[in-house]
Every structure is written in C-alpha cells, then in structure tokens.
C-alpha cells in the first residue's frame, strides 16, 4: 500500500524509477516531456498526444472532445508514448522484477485495469509468450484494448 500511496503523490522512490504514474526519469532524453497532463502548458501543440486524444485548442470555449479517431488509434498503437511505455515505464520495470510469467501478467493487469486477470486471460497471455510475444507486447495489448479505453 505504501507503494500505491507514493504513486498517488507522484513521488516514486528513486530505486523504482522516478516520478510520474507510468514514467521513469531514467531516460533523460525526454525528461522534460514526461510530466502529468495538469503540469503541462495548455494547449499543447496540435500533434501532441493530448491534443490527438481530444484536448481543446482553446481557440473557442468548450472545445474538448472525447471522440476517438484514426489518428488517436495510430498514436495508441505506434506512437512515441506507447514505445516509451513498452520499454521504459514504471509498470514494465516492476513487472520485469517479478520472477514468473503469471505474476508479471498479474502486475500488468493490475496496473492497467486495477483488477487481477481471469484465469483464461492468464492462459491466453502465457500461450502468447510461447509464440515470441514479449512482456511489452502484453502491455501494448492491454493499453489498446476497449476495456482500457472505456472502463474508468
């Protein structure tokens, strides 16, 4: 629980990879980019992930949107944010520390959906591992699922 509290504060112990819910600060390359949405200037440039996901341009009032689109799907599947999440996120780092596959899967499910995987889901992921799927691909699949998009 102490760990969950530290996540909420945005203060993750340094040995667990720095600040932010999903991001670690070990890669300095984009250190200034990885901030919480509320800490960023608004509006962000038009190609930024937040704008693609519906942030208002603030040209006129009440202009945010929750509708998706092809551009958003492309960014979720292939974008820079996703690439970073798959390789360098706190969720991935913690999952990699788990000793067996089932625990790794469970940690990713808890990180993304706040629930344990069903037995069938664990089985499906384990089968995927045997077909050269990596841990990052599991995270990719969870974050691109409709369940992640629609359950808050």
């Amino acid at each position, binding site marked *: 629980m102490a760990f969950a509290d530290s996540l909420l504060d945005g203060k993750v112990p340094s040995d667990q990879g720095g600040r932010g819910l999903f991001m670690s600060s070990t890669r300095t390359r984009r250190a200034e980019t990885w901030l919480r949405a509320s800490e960023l200037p608004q509006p962000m440039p038009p190609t930024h992930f937040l704008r693609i996901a519906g942030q208002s341009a603030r040209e006129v009032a009440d202009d945010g949107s929750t509708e998706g*689109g*092809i551009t958003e799907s*492309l960014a979720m599947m*292939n974008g820079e944010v996703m690439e970073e999440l798959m390789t360098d996120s706190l969720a991935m780092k913690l999952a990699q520390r788990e000793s067996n596959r089932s625990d790794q899967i469970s940690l990713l499910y808890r990180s993304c959906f706040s629930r344990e995987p069903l037995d069938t889901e664990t089985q499906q992921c384990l089968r995927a591992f045997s077909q050269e*799927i990596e841990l990052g691909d599991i995270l990719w699949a969870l974050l691109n*699922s409709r*369940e992640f998009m629609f359950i808050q």
Partner: protein
Amino acid sequence: MKQILDKLDTSTRRRFVERCAAASLGLSILPGNSFVSAQTREQRHPAFGKAKHVIWLMLSGGLSHIDSLDPKKGKSKGPAKPIRTSASFQVTDYFPRFASVADRLCVIRSMEAKIGVHKPAQYFMRTAFEPRGTIVHPTLGAWGSHYLGRSSDHLPSSVCVNRRSDQGNGFFSSSYAPLAIGDPTQGISDVESIGGRAAARKRVALLNELDSGFRTRFNDKGVAAYNGFYDDALALMKSKDLEAFDLSKETSQQRSAYGDHSFGQGCLLARRLVESGVRFVEVKHDGWDHHKALADEMSDVAPVFDQAFSALIKDLEQRGMLESTLVVVATEFGRKPNFDGDGRSHHPICFSTVLAGGGVKEGFVYGKSDDAGYYVDENPVSVGSFHSSIAYAAGMEITQPAISPSGRPMSVGDGEQPILELFA
C-alpha cells in the same frame, strides 16, 4: 441490397403512406423533395457531379464579411479600403492576391444563419443541422462516402487538416470519419509499427483475443466506433499511397508559394491529397474572431489566407484540376456592421462565403446584403442550401434520404434545395 435492408428498418410508417400514395394515386409526397426528385438524368444541370473533389477551407472564429468580401461605405466601413478585382466586384485591400484570382471565383454575399456562438455555429456550418439532442450529424465528407462510396482504395475518403476528427461521420458508421492531420508539415505520423510488421501482427492478434470478451459484453456504439477506428488505422498502415501525406515531395518553390504556416501548408497538402484520390479535405484556419483590435488582427491573419488561397486556386488551375475540384471558403458567421470598441461581434444573419471550381460560375457574385451589411437583401442562401449545392455539384443523389439509427430520414442540407444559379 442496402435498400432492401432499409426496408426492414423501423421507419416504415412514413414509407408505407408514401408508397400507397405513389402506387394508388401516382403521387409523390414529401413536397420538400419534389424539385430534384422530378429530375431525370437528362434534366439534371450539367454541373451535377462535376466536382470530383471538395476542398473546404474553414475560417474559424467568424470572418468579417464587411472587412473582406462585402466592403461597405458609411458607418459600417472598416479600417480597409475597397479595391478592384479581376472580376466586376470589389473586396477590401486586405486581400490583394484574392482579388487577382477573383475572375475564377463565385462569392456569395447573402449567407443566412441563426447561431451566434462559435461551437454550435461551427457545427451548423459543417453539418447544416443544429446540434439537437443526442443525434450527431455528418459533414459533407461523410455524406460523400454514403452516396458515392470510397474515393480511393488505399487512402481515406475524407481528411481534415489542423483539426480533430470530431464533427465528422455523424450518425454514419465510424468508417466515414475523417482522418485528422494535426500538423500538415509532419503529414501522417505513427503509421510505422513498433518493432516491425511481424511483431505488430502478433500484438494485434493478442489484443483481439484478450479484448473479445469485453467487446461482446459491451457492444455499444462507442465501443463499435473504436473497433472501426482500429480497423481503419490498421488498413492505413498498410496503404501504398502514404506519400500523398508527405509535403517534402513538393519543391521548395511550391511550398513557399503557399506560405510557411500551417494553413498554407495545409492547403498544399489538400491539393496533394485530392490529386491522390481523397474526395473531401477540410483545412481549418484559426484566428478570425476579431472582437478587439480588428485592424491589427486582420493584418496578421488575412495575408496568410490571401496567399494560401490564391496559390491553391492557381495551382489547381495549372494542373487542370480546378474543373473537377470545388474549393469552398466557409466560416461560422460574419461580424456586426457596428464596431464594439475596435472590434466587431458575431453576426450570423448575414455573411459571405466563396465557391470556386467544380462547375461553379466564375467572376460571379450571388446575393446581396443591405447597405449596412446587416441583413440579406437579395437571394438569401441558407447553410442548408449551401450544403445541398455543394453535394449536387459533387454528384450525390441528395433526394434519397439516409435513415439515421433512430429511424429518422435525414437529407443533405436538412432537405433544402441546391441553388442551380451558382453553376455555369
């Protein structure tokens, strides 16, 4: 086949009466549609279907008609002087390059709308319907996909530049939604799979397997729309024509002719896209909401539009594409004749738009505002008939209403008639 399926839809009461009347009395009811439905192929105006492509330039914020396309004398006059154009009408001196291509344009000075608030007014301008209840209405790009099918095998039929894809497919399937390009100079991003195609295929298979339970249990409109976006995104990633989105294939001369800003480059991208088979492209230009310091702000934003628009018209003409491409300049409303401080407020009941190419008359002014520029004086053009005219030029069978998911018949331009006097 689609019509057979439509017959199974819920809206059969109206159809039933309609068919009875048609069968037993030889009558066609729904009088709103009688004009064009009476047209056979031979009776159609030659302009029908000439516009294979539509480029819709959206001046967001509300273009002051008096300071641009409809200059006035006396109290209403703004900071700019009227100038001659290559046609018989005048514009203000904010738009000298526009003036030089005026002989290819049709200016409408009698647009009429009702909504004076940006967001709903933009919705109205893009869809010709007022936002009402839960129903969402489609743009002309989506109507085009409905009536005419896909415009290209490898590219989306509808693209919007400098804006998101909302206000797009409306009640139609999400496959009619436009593709959104946030920055035209970057073109389309994120089309390369992380770690190559083979890895991507496996990931997608795993995603569909893990997520299938959720998709079956919560099979609502929102989830179905997202399924569609993912399908389209995956199809686009495989497309062979992605070069169409790449402005670096243009010469630096060409790029600077359109102007070094997102609107100019957006117009250039629009030309590339229609050339490659995209039917409908919207390019949005922000910054026309001049409540304060109108003179200063117009001198910032007007030259950007002036340069990009005139470059687009000349470029299309040189490539022989102006005949088959309808360029539309639209805005959500005009601005008041009287000044409020050093700016003007919103004025939806009289404003101006432009049509060019695609079989529209050249060097022509349609409609007239009164001396102050406050009311429409002659030949009012509703947003609905503006839409119907564009749809007619694009060759859509606008007399055949589409049935919305709630079972209501819906027509392009809310069923209003096209204005055939606009066409050559």
